[in-house]
């Protein structure tokens, strides 16, 4: 099923439901990849190709390292959060640190055709 935007609000709700129903589907089942490793990833089908979307707020595009080897995709990097030392903290929910995640996908990747962009 393809989502066309007719009414953006009901389309969003429909899309949220579609995301929920694909939650931890068995698409990766035979691979070694585990869930719960940062960053969280959503995988989509777009025609014949696949789109992987990862949530990495606060990480500059240049600080994300993506490498592909065979069916494996590795996404790694570092998220740094720095504040001036003179400020006092009211609330700290955002965290900094390293991330390194490898996914083995059940498709053949044509590494030359890989593109990346910010969503």
């Amino acid at each position: 099923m393809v989502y066309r935007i007719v009414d953006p609000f009901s389309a969003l709700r429909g899309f949220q439901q579609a995301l929920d129903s694909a939650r931890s589907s068995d698409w990766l089942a035979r691979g070694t990849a585990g869930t719960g490793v940062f960053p969280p990833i959503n995988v989509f089908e777009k025609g014949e190709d696949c789109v992987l979307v990862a949530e990495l707020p606060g990480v500059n595009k240049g600080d994300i390292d993506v490498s592909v080897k065979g069916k494996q995709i590795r996404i790694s990097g570092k998220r740094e959060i720095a504040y001036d030392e003179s400020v006092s903290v009211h609330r700290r929910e955002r965290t900094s640190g390293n991330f390194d995640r490898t996914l083995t996908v059940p498709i053949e990747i044509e590494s030359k055709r890989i593109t990346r962009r910010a969503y």
Partner: protein
Amino acid sequence: MTTQDLQVKEKKEQLQERGEKTEVGRYFVPLTDIHESSDALFVTMDMPGVRKENVDIHLEKNALTVTGNIDFSNYEDLRPIYTEYSIGNFTRSFTLSSRINKEGISAKMVDGVLALYLPKVKEAAAMKIEVT
């Protein structure tokens, strides 16, 4: 500083405690840092997928409400096959303890992080009181 590995945090959904939303769809609570200096408050929010033109910042008296809408058109023609997180708009409200100079508020969005600068009204700025 020791560097540690980042952990996945499940996105928290906005519960409709403070009035119903008129739009359908789920809202999420953005992870937020709040810092204070002697003359301003800094609010930093993670809003992945939100563009700066889709952020709404509302300050009335000392109630600050920030809403960020995602650009859903990116997901047109995509069919989910394996997912680990949901997407949706973000909203969060705070009651500020200091009086803010509304005219001086500025905001910027970099890499999906919204940084708000809220300058305090002059008389609310911290004063050092000397004891004699």
